[in-house]
């Protein structure tokens, strides 16, 4: 069997059923672009989400009576919690300076002694971001001797967790639905293409072409359509990303391997779609 003839028939097939091929390519391109942009948005939301979380700190205010040894021990104890990434000591002096920096007011001119307690600033690992987990950690630290109070931005943690998490879940569901729709769409358009060429398949069967020989051009054609459609989709997404980066949001990130993934997905869908459709029309 000549591979050259098969490849030629595949390409000629694309040319012959130009309209059907264009429709297939465009629908693959549109659905993959849509799928890609949903993935893109989801990924960047997650990224923003993570960046917010990285800024969340627990402020652990300490008894002023603690000695250096005790401070050191306490720091170690806090650090032992699995949720804790780092613990930074802020002396009451440093806290005062920070206050002055932030508010531009010199407290020492109003008050004789420094009212700000020393504290530990606890940085969290991004893995443990559920509000209950953070609250639990805060309670555990609160119970340690020498700790006066633990504060953090509870409301923001709650908000982020609730809405951004929900948003990402919705996006993922949509992306999945789009994937299902693309699959059905591709199967159907390729089935239409093949249906429009029933006579050629019939003749091939009549003159004794083998099954594989009849299928191959359609499968090659389907793959080419999938590849072209996904290439277009990747082009559109790349343009979209660079536009967003230039105009709206500088920090936009492309998930690693998104483009190759889309190319492989499109090609595979084209291949599978044509394979299944052509099988439907072959009697033996």
């Amino acid at each position, binding site marked *: 069997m000549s591979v050259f003839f098969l490849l030629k028939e595949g390409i000629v097939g694309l040319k012959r059923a130009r309209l059907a091929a264009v429709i297939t390519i465009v629908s693959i391109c549109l659905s993959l672009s849509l799928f890609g942009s949903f993935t893109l948005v989801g990924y960047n939301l997650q990224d923003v989400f993570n960046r917010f979380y990285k800024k969340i700190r627990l402020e652990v205010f300490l008894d002023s009576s603690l000695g250096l040894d005790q401070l050191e021990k306490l720091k170690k104890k806090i650090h032992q919690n699995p949720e804790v990434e780092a613990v930074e000591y802020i002396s009451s002096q440093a806290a005062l300076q920070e206050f002055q920096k932030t508010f531009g007011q010199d407290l020492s001119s109003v008050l004789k002694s420094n009212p700000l307690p020393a504290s530990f600033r606890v940085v969290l690992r991004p893995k443990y971001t559920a509000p209950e987990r953070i609250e639990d950690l805060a309670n555990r630290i609160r119970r340690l001797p020498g700790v006066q109070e633990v504060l953090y931005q509870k409301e923001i943690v709650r908000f982020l967790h609730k809405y951004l998490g929900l948003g990402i879940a919705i996006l993922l569901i949509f992306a999945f639905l789009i994937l299902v729709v693309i699959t059905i769409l591709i199967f159907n358009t390729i089935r239409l293409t093949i249906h429009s060429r029933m006579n050629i398949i019939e003749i*091939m069967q009549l*003159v004794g072409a083998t099954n594989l020989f009849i299928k191959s051009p359609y499968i090659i054609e389907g793959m080419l359509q999938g590849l072209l459609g996904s290439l277009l989709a990747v082009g559109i997404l790349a343009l979209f990303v660079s536009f967003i980066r230039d105009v709206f949001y500088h920090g936009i990130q492309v998930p690693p391997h998104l483009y190759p993934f889309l190319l492989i997905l499109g090609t595979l869908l084209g291949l599978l779609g044509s394979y299944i459709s052509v099988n439907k029309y072959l009697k033996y």
Partner: protein
Amino acid sequence: MIELFNVSVQENKRLILNQVSLRINKGEFVYLIGKTGAGKTTLLRLIYLDLYPSQGNIIVENYSSATIKRRQIPYLRRKVGVVFQDFKLLPDRNVYENVAFALRVIGASRREIKSRVLSVLTQVGLNHKRYHLPHTLSGGEKQRVAIARALVNEPFILLADEPTGNLDPEASRDILELLEDINRSGTAVCMATHNYELIKLIPHRTILLDNGEIRREFSPAEVQQLKVIE
């Protein structure tokens, strides 16, 4: 050699062929006649295994409908040429390509394709129109292309299902003469038709099908007595 043993075909609870036994010998010319719906087309489809019998067995050369594997069917089809009333040509390919198609899809070499296509086009008298597209040809010429495509694989039998159904009397006669020529060169021909006047021109063994059964067989001499029964 083709042999049918007590073949029945049932489709949607309707009996299309009922206990048909028939033998077509090497190099024979056989007419299948009968009304529309008598089972002529079904009988032909059985021979190229486009259809399996519900009962009975069909032997085509070395293949048997009872034991043939699906992947062997293409190889059987290469030994059986088929033409139809509606020609079934590929409208976007010229005469040469339509005929060559039958060889390309079985992986023949380019040189072989060229020599065999040109020779078979000469045989059907269409060499001079080999670059024409089907829509520029007359009905008779289209059928010649279809016959050339069926012959290019050098089958041992040519099945023709109402090959003159769409043709005027003169073109019909030409096609019949072509089939006769083909038969003389050693290929068996089995032609389904309901044009009784036509078969009287070149009489052969004739089988009358009625309601899915073989009603009667006529020898070439008896063919002249055939009356239109439709």
